[in-house]
């Protein structure tokens, strides 16, 4: 758990939970233009809080409305705290706007609870949304996901119940781009291996013929140039990297020029030229096993594969083979399928693999911002207002 020293500091602490002097400003222009909501049975308050982040400058522009006590809409969550539950600090944020019902409470009193629940807050893919659950919640209006990926949700099925789905694209972009860069640098410079050598009780000297590969001036191929991919490109540019990208659609010329990115209409061209290949796509039927034996074979033998999208975008068996046979130099994965991998999986034992436990958005700041973005989405949906980040089935 990321901890910090408590309140005896005189300096401002970068965004910590439970700090009452810290707050963020949220104001959605569309909600502002509607003024106060027209429901007469409840009292609404517009709430503004001042922006005072000393670390992290991203803000979510949404309006927040606090309803009168006793009339708070009910939101279903898996749990508060524990191994998979909503973090306590996030629960506190949610409680300002909603009445929280845990899965346990719901199952313990289904008849009374089922009609109350208007929204579900999905945190770290839980609770699982299945047909049975949807059938039991007649007044469910929206499922708000914490995070941008919604591959764990059956969008068609949910839509068939007239329920909206929302995600949090703004909160995730910076921290996920950061983890992409972190993995690329760590893999290139053999940081994990090096740390183990430096700390090992058996180390007597540092060998001079122990080398990594260079990031500066190398070629980075970004597969999937959405918001996150673009932020990766912005960062990579500062390392003088040559940037290639493959995307369903080519980006505007100005966007390309701003980061010096060259479009590769054919993914093969990108694979053949890149020293680092970074996967930043969402998981869809089209991107499932996008990188398989053929694609790995096209990559340079000195190349590194970095995955910050979803584990299933890579054919994992093909990856194991490619790494074992030195078809590619190394891989760095924030995501695998499943998570965690079975403890006897070959990927866990390869020296040229770095795996992180899906921490693309695991920062104090991002977790909070995702909750705030989800809250804004839920409030908009429940108040029949334009929803900032709605996701539609294809």
């Amino acid at each position: 758990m990321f901890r910090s020293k408590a309140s005896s500091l005189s300096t401002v602490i970068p965004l910590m939970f439970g700090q009452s002097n810290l707050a963020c400003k949220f104001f959605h222009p569309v909600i502002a233009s509607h003024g106060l909501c027209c429901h007469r049975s409840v009292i609404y308050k517009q709430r503004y809080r001042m922006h005072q982040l000393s670390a992290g400058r991203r803000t979510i522009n949404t309006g927040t409305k606090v309803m009168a006590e006793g009339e708070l809409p009910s939101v279903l969550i898996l749990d508060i705290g524990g191994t998979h539950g909503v973090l306590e600090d996030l629960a506190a944020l949610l409680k300002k706007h909603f009445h929280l019902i845990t899965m346990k409470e719901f199952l313990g009193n289904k008849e009374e609870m089922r009609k109350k629940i208007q929204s579900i807050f999905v945190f770290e893919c839980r609770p699982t949304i299945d047909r049975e659950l949807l059938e039991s919640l007649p007044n469910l209006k929206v499922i708000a996901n914490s995070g941008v990926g919604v591959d764990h949700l059956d969008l068609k099925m949910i839509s068939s119940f007239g329920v909206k789905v929302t995600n949090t694209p703004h909160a995730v972009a910076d921290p996920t781009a950061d983890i992409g860069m972190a993995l690329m640098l760590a893999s290139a410079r053999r940081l994990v291996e090096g740390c183990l050598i430096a700390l090992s009780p058996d180390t007597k000297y540092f060998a001079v013929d122990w080398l990594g590969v260079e990031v500066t001036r190398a070629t980075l191929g970004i597969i999937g140039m959405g918001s996150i991919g673009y932020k990766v490109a912005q960062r990579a540019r500062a390392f003088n990297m040559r940037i290639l990208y493959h995307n369903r659609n080519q980006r505007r010329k100005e966007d390309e020029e701003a980061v010096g990115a060259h479009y590769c209409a054919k993914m093969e061209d990108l694979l053949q030229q890149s020293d680092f290949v970074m996967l930043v796509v969402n998981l869809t039927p089209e991107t499932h096993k996008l990188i398989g034996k053929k694609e790995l074979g096209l990559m340079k033998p000195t190349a590194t594969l970095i995955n910050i999208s979803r584990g299933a975008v890579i054919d994992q068996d093909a990856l194991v083979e490619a790494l074992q046979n030195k078809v590619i130099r190394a891989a760095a994965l924030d995501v695998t399928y499943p998570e965690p991998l079975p403890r006897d999986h070959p990927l866990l034992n390869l020296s040229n693999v770095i795996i992180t436990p899906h921490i693309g958005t695991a920062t104090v700041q991002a977790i909070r911002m995702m909750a705030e973005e989800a809250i804004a989405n839920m409030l908009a949906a429940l108040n029949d207002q334009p929803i900032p980040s709605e996701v539609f089935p294809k």
Partner: protein
Amino acid sequence: MESQELPYVLVDCIGGRLGVYEDHLGFLKKRFHLITMKEYLENKTFLSKKIRAIYVWYHKPAINEELLQSLNNLKVVASAGVGIDHLDLKLLSSYGVKVSNTPFVVSTDTADMGMALMLASSRRLVEGHEMAVSPDTEYFPVDWLGAEVSGATLGIVGMGKIGYKVAERAKAFEMKILYHNRNQRKKEEESAVGAIYCKKIDDLLQQSDFVLLAATLTPQTHKLIGKRELELMKPTATLINISRGKVQNKQNCIKVWWHDKSWENLQL
């Protein structure tokens, strides 16, 4: 050209875990006749007059007065790398021997390493990897968090070539950049990376989420970061050192860390 006509250059050894790379022999031998320390010691009388240069590779060979006295035709000591704290510059100068280093080629890779360490530390990458591969891991806990680099404040202590390259990279992460240097940089250089000068190191230490040391090791920077400086830093801050170990007072680092658990994010 016959090999006898190429200038004689002394190196410590070739190959093995500490020697000059065998891959490099190709281009070195085109220009120089390489003599290893072993060969020199076996044939001192003949070779000591021939040796015109010493190629110092990873701080070897160590150069002492005895060696300098016997190599009376030595003109230059060329050190690979930019740091020269392992060389006694005054001593070499007193023998009329020039010293050279390699400042240009090291700057980007060292800056890359600084960024790698900052990102790895803040996102707990090594810990995360160990959790992901550990045989005991059953699930990934949801309350396992790091701190964000994007938008945070980076304080660079020592804004030379390497420090400046770090600033260029950090700017792309929208970091707020403070720097402390013997001299303030030119305005254009500062604006290009959005760096703010802190004349007093204390100001930098108090405001930074990440403090990165990129200074050369000199008597002035020896133990530059000690107990006082560490205590001025935020308890949530991370210290990154890509300069020389002696720039921080390791003893005090450890003392402070154990004394007050709130320093657990301190990366040594």
